[in-house]
């Protein structure tokens, strides 16, 4: 509870007394590379496999002859777009991006680099965290879109290679009974997740006290806390937006 309050105060502090826009812009592009480009590989691999597994397992579970085959790819589509692409991608990013952010800020804290910024009169939390937050909110939804696309491709590949569904049925199935709202819903989710991951990890890193050991602990806590909050938010958003 106390740390929730501190977290909210921390968030408020981000928007007080900002520096020149130019300064943020440079940092922003650097963070985009760190958070976005450097996560492409892991996100891509995870998404492909999730799609492939979903397709093969759905086919395995559908034994009834009355259900047409194309429903397999409809299920793959809905599962990935609605849930797997945003949530699994963000869980993976909680680990990758979260530990990176918390480790970086924690190290800066214990080596007095944050104090050095403050002595110069820079609002260190805003200078360090805002670019990360902005980069996360821009890049993570893009990664999620990519993940959704790759998951469906993974499903297609696995389905056609193993022969559980043919190419024509798969392509028909992914267009069948499509609910357009699912796409903005997935994007809203990923923006919320991006906000949670970047701010929670920053918060954990920023308030590290001690030395190298505590930086490691802060990283771990950043990852676990971001994961839990992503899952919680996932549930709440589903309740809120799908009813």
């Amino acid at each position, binding site marked *: 509870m106390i740390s929730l309050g501190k977290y909210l105060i921390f968030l408020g502090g981000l928007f007080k007394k900002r*520096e*020149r826009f130019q*300064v943020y812009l440079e940092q922003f592009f650097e963070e985009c590379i760190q958070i976005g480009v450097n996560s492409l590989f892991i996100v891509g691999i995870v998404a492909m496999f999730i799609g492939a597994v979903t397709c093969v397992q759905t086919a395995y579970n559908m034994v009834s002859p009355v259900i047409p085959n194309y429903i397999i790819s409809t299920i793959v589509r809905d599962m990935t777009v609605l849930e797997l692409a945003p949530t699994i991608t963000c869980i993976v990013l909680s680990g990758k991006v979260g530990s990176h952010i918390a480790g970086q800020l924690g*190290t*800066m804290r214990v*080596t*007095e*680099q944050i*104090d*050095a910024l*403050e*002595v*110069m*009169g*820079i609002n260190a939390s805003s200078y360090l965290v805002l670019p990360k937050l902005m980069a996360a909110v821009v890049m993570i939804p893009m990664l999620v879109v990519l993940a959704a696309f790759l998951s469906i491709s993974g499903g297609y590949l696995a389905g056609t290679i193993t022969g559980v569904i043919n190419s024509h049925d798969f392509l028909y199935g992914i267009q069948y009974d499509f609910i357009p709202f699912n796409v903005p819903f997935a994007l809203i989710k990923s923006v919320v997740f991006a906000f949670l991951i970047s701010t929670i990890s920053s918060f954990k890193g920023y308030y590290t006290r001690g030395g190298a050991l505590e930086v490691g602990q802060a990283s771990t806590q950043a990852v676990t806390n971001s994961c839990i909050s992503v899952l919680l938010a996932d549930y709440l958003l589903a309740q809120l937006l799908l009813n």
Partner: protein
Amino acid sequence: MIEINNIKKAFSGKEVLKGISGKFYQGKSNLIIGSSGTGKSVLLKNIVGLIQPDEGEILYDGRDFSKPAAIQEIRREIGMLFQGSALFDSMTVLENVMFPLKMFTKMSPQERAERAQYCLERVSLDKAGSLMPSEISGGMQKRVGIARAIVMNPKYLFCDEPNSGLDPQTAITIDELIQDITQEFNMTTVVVTHDMNSVMGIGDHIMYLCQGHKLWEGNKDNILDTDCKELQEFLFSSELIRKLKS
């Protein structure tokens, strides 16, 4: 001149600073000495505003440091060298020194680089500009820290244990550098240290802290004649000082 009046600070009930007053003079190296854990770093952080004192007043040439209007102005006039140098490890040495210029001046990149290069030359590191902080030695990091601290032409320079973890020879070089810069730019310099070489070398003005109290104030010429018991014990634990005294 910096003047502090009755500074008190407690951390979760534990009193660290128990009412400290004193003055730090312009153009002099003002030392704060005392054994480990007596609150020297905490006092320094209070003075530069990294920690808010519970009580007391800090005046920079008469300007109250707790007034928001004054804080911004004074911050621009402060340079600080941290105990662990605190260089930004994602930037090169030159970028570190240029950083304050980039944030606070309208200089062109060319002018910034020139000014930063000048400061690096001042600390005899003109060839290290393109290296990363992790690629240079501890003593060099301290010197880069000094270069970064003076790049904005500060009126006030603060150094937290500038020569801890260095060999005696390098330590003396750093001390002399601080002393030279202080006199050259007529700065008000405050140095936290427990190095006896520094005390005897650059102690223009010395304040001795013990368990949160200021027990003695003076300079390197009269410190050996002190009649403060705690300070005597602190000083004469050093073999060197014992020899000097006898």
